[in-house]
């Protein structure tokens, strides 16, 4: 692996471990609650849940069929909390790629090494991909293992498909954070742009079925492509995945080009 990728992963190590532990603890714990919900199907049935106000139900993604394994995983694990935590992780790491070391002035020495600036951005991006992939793999295994131990009844292939979509979603937001940082050199800009886009994207996607304007805005929301395909039920949605990947690729190119042409550390 290129030296700078390894070095970047070393810089990421502590936050990677922290986020992995957090995401796995959360996902594992909630998955392990499934038997209780299945056992009390009446209590948690759709009718029972319908007493929540509509708006809350929409934001939580409908809470439909949570007494079936796939419905439970969709609503509890993959609808909001895991993507949310994992996005926060990705955005934080994305800001560490360029903006944070630039602000703390540690980037200056790296920049004066015999490394092309384009390559610097690409290697930082590569480290982001590897780091997020690590978190995704570990949390996938935790969800799959805990799921199997409580007989959740969702095949591994489907969980893998859902988890792959989480990975692509958070890779997009991590890259957005990296790109905003590479273009501006400001950590606040990196966190702000990616954070606002994530929250707005989520809300737009949640409200889209009910609000007219939101449904076309929704085409700009990564969460639309993330959730539209229902990978837990129908398998890996290649088209949606390609949209997320293409958007990420455009961001990386923007990062490379904008970082290549500006003053660093001013």
């Amino acid at each position, binding site marked *: 692996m290129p030296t700078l990728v390894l070095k970047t992963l070393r810089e990421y190590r502590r936050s990677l471990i922290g986020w992995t532990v957090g995401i796995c603890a959360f996902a594992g714990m909630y998955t392990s609650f499934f038997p209780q919900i299945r056992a009390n199907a009446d209590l948690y049935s759709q009718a029972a849940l319908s007493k929540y106000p509509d708006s809350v139900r929409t934001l939580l993604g409908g809470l439909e069929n949570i007494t079936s394994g796939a419905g439970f995983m969709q609503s509890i694990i993959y609808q909001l909390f895991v993507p949310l935590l994992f996005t926060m992780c990705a955005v934080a790491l994305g800001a560490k790629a360029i903006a944070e070391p630039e602000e703390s002035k540690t980037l200056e020495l790296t920049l*004066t090494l015999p490394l092309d600036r384009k390559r610097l951005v690409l290697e930082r991006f590569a480290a982001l991909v590897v780091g997020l992939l690590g978190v995704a793999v570990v949390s996938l295994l935790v969800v799959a293992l805990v799921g199997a131990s409580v007989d959740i009844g969702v095949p591994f292939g489907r969980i893998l498909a859902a988890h792959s979509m989480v990975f692509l979603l958070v890779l997009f937001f991590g890259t957005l954070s990296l790109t905003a940082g590479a273009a501006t050199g400001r950590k606040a800009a990196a966190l702000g742009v990616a954070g606002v886009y994530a929250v707005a994207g989520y809300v737009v996607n949640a409200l889209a079925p009910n609000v007219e304007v939101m449904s076309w805005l929704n085409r700009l929301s990564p969460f639309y492509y993330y959730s539209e395909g229902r990978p837990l039920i129908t398998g890996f949605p290649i088209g949606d995945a390609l949209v997320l990947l293409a958007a990420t690729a455009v961001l990386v190119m923007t990062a490379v080009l904008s970082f290549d042409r500006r003053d660093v550390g001013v």
Partner: protein
Amino acid sequence: MVETEGLTKFYGKRRGLEDLSLEIRAGEVFGYLGPNGAGKTTTIRLLLDVIRPTRGRLRVLGADPRDPGVRGRIGYLPGELALEGRDKAGDYLRFLAGVRGGVAKGRVEQLAERLEADLSVRMGKLSKGNKQKVGLIQAFMHEPELLILDEPTSGLDPLVQQEFLSMVREARTAGRTVLMSSHVLAEVEHVSDRVGIVRSGRLVAVENVAALREKAVRLVELHFDAPVPEDAFRDLPGVRDLKVEGANVRCTIDGRPDALIKAAARFTVVHMVSAEPDLEEIFLTYYSEEGRHAHAGA
């Protein structure tokens, strides 16, 4: 080695550097002097392609510093060196060496020993001076053709400063070129061949240190074993403010002490004191005049 022409950098509306034309020759040590905010760091960052010029031309080692290959032949110490994190200083140096394609075996340890740097400490926990030592080690470790050092002595104790200066001398002996910035001439005059002064973003003077020293006025005191006649020292070239009191002679000399020494040689000299010339002072007066000319011209 370094060539700039009309090099100008504005930070938005703020002037960082204006119209710098400078040549640094192969094998010389160039002292780059100026007060706070003069434009030293701006110049150096331009040379390393950290920032880009607003106008003007620059060549470093015969090429554009955007070329990563050029940066591979430079050793750089940033003026605002930041070393952070939980990595040990030694690991960080290994990383830098790795990207640079490796350094000679034992080189880092040898430099660390000379500068008395402890490389087993986490970087975030290093004191300012110790960070500076790590910065110096990484600049020198790959034995680059060109060393660009922004305020290299800041934070170093006097003994380490001396060690650093001898490292610069060795680099020069080995045929390398050094550009180092400082606030005071005294810090660099003993190793520099030439010095340049920047002020408010403009280069106001470039001078040869040896020539400067020759021009320097210095106070000399001679003590003889018996009273000497004043006539023997009067009207010697370059000798001024002559005072002869019995066996003691005091005067200032302007440039070479040759005539005075030859005149004194006719008597028995028991003691001689020659104050080191204060180059700083001449230089300051010299460049404040130059500065005035420049302003008048502008």
